[in-house]
């Protein structure tokens, strides 16, 4: 591992001996925001609690800012008090009997009274809560409570910031506002930030890296764009709510042209490799990639092209006709579900924006002409998750 990363950011390698499984390695650099997404019960909150020292049933290593917080083999286990972590709990966990000012001061108890009063006031001003110092938590709105929790987490100059679903307990409007504020604030924070969320949109908006957790394992860690473009495994794609996962059969590898030919229920499909990393990954798995090999692939929304008629579609690669099965208007979007004529058992679902809709209106039973963009398709290699993760890890922005 990178020595600089180890000394400056957060590095963890954990396994759980408790009832909630955890088995993962993660790194988060100074100033980086890593979002943990995954279904409930996937271990997101447990991981945060383990980092804060609140979940003792873990083994492994945690180091942050050059300090070792946990090293089971060397019998090092720092208490939550010794770790200097800032944590925003899911329901904020403010001290209900203390004022806003006292809540924030609580994180500075070892400082002289004057110093902590001043620091708490400054931090409250920074999160736009000046004037509310003497209120009790019960007298605050959800958004204000969240800000107090954030101020309390940050005032002690922590080495790691943990945010456990910080926007879950507020209404939609406040949520967007707080998200914008966090996005602004985080750039002034030179520390690793871990954000637990079940909201993929939130993760995409705020995070530098997203970690997809499932049953305590990190299935993929990638930047939001590469995660959405190239989920490492079909499982990740499903966890991210992606539709249009299909099975095909490998026909031919044409690495000189960076092309892969697939058969999808009798329809020839072409996949165009876009990067040298793809080619390297294919080379790596070459032994397994024999003609006839079953492969899973994904048609992301961006890969689906619509054509007015068969003649226009004929000019495109991977074109096929399909019959509209369902068309539902969802606000500004039209949700379409179509059945390809050559493979009616493999329906595709996708959204169209209303702008597009004004010109065309598709009713059930009508025929559409679709094509799948060869560069935007995503092919899952018959590899284990670790190998697949390496591919996307290579695309991480440095």
């Amino acid at each position, binding site marked *: 591992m990178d020595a600089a990363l180890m000394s400056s950011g957060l590095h963890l390698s954990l396994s759980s001996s408790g009832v909630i499984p955890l088995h993962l390695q993660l790194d988060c650099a100074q100033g980086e925001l890593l979002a943990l997404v995954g279904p409930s019960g996937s271990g997101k909150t447990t991981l945060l609690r383990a980092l804060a020292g*609140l979940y003792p049933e873990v083994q492994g290593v945690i180091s942050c800012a050059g300090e070792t917080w946990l090293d089971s083999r060397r019998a090092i286990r720092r208490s939550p008090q010794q770790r*200097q972590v800032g944590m925003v*709990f899911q329901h904020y*966990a403010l001290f*209900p009997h203390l004022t806003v000012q006292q809540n924030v001061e609580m994180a500075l*108890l070892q400082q002289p009274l004057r110093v902590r009063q001043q620091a708490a006031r400054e931090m409250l001003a920074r999160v736009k809560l000046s004037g509310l110092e003497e209120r*009790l938590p*019960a007298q605050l709105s959800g958004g204000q409570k969240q800000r107090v929790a954030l101020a*309390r987490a940050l005032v002690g100059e922590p080495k790691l910031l943990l945010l456990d679903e910080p926007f879950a307990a507020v209404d939609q409007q406040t949520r967007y506002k707080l998200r914008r504020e966090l996005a602004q604030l985080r750039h002034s924070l030179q520390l690793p930030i871990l954000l637990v969320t079940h909201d993929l949109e939130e993760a995409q908006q705020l995070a530098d890296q997203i970690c997809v957790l499932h049953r305590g394992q990190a299935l993929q860690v990638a930047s939001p764009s590469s995660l959405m473009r190239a989920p490492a495994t079909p499982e990740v794609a499903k966890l991210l709510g992606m539709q249009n996962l299909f099975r095909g059969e490998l026909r031919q590898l044409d690495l000189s042209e960076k092309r892969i030919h697939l058969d999808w229920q009798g329809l020839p499909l072409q996949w165009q490799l876009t990067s040298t990393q793809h080619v390297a990954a294919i080379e790596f798995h070459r032994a397994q990639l024999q003609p006839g090999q079953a492969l899973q692939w994904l048609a992301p929304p961006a890969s689906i092209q619509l054509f007015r008629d068969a003649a226009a579609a004929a000019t495109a690669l991977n074109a096929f006709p399909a019959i509209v099965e369902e068309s539902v208007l969802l606000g500004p979007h039209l949700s379409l579900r179509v059945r390809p004529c050559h493979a009616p058992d493999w329906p595709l679902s996708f959204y169209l924006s209303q702008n597009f809709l004004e010109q065309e209106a598709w009713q059930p039973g009508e025929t559409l002409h679709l094509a799948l963009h060869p560069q935007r398709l995503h092919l899952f290699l018959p590899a284990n998750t670790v190998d697949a993760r390496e591919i996307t890890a290579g695309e991480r922005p440095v």
Partner: protein
Amino acid sequence: MDWSALSISLKLAFWTSVLLLPLGLVLGRWLAWYPPRAAAWVHSLIFLPLVLPPTVLGYYALLAIAPDAPLGMLWQSLSGRSLAFSFEALLLVSLVANLPFVVQPISNSYQALDRDIYDAGRVCGLAPWSLFWRIELPLIWPGVLSATMLTFTHTLGEFGVVLMVGGNLAGETRTLSIAIYDEVQALNMSAAGQMSLFLLLLAFSALLWMQWQNRRARRLML
């Protein structure tokens, strides 16, 4: 009014409440936050004095403090006095009899305390002792208050156990509730009435004060 009996009653109630509180805090917290595997057994044991006839409790207490019983002998060797029919014996059995009154309200308060708030205190860097004084105690305060008031008033009213263990020695073990019984036996109804009214008013105002305090504490936090 039997002033000596009143003073013994108040002394007994005071010491019972004061000595039971730390024990109640430890037991209540343990049962609420770290329920042992044998929780059912522990609960049953603690609540036993609530359902047992005071005479049964008193009978076993008498056996335990007898001069030839281990506890009685230990006390004798330490203090040079007999434990039986002494104020200390009264206090000892009063502690046992009041255990459920102090453990239950405190345990309930601990159960109602959001563990995340406690954990937030730990993450803030508060040492265990600081956590207790600054976070736990203020938040379980209504429970502590209830426990103390219940113990105090219940001890004032205790009759059966006191009679069994303490006998009825004026100036040593005769409490107000026993003095009332004596006066009634002697058909001295006006004296009994006076003391009864006093106990009635004391108990009622204590309960009323406790209700007010609890309401205040709740209003503060909700």
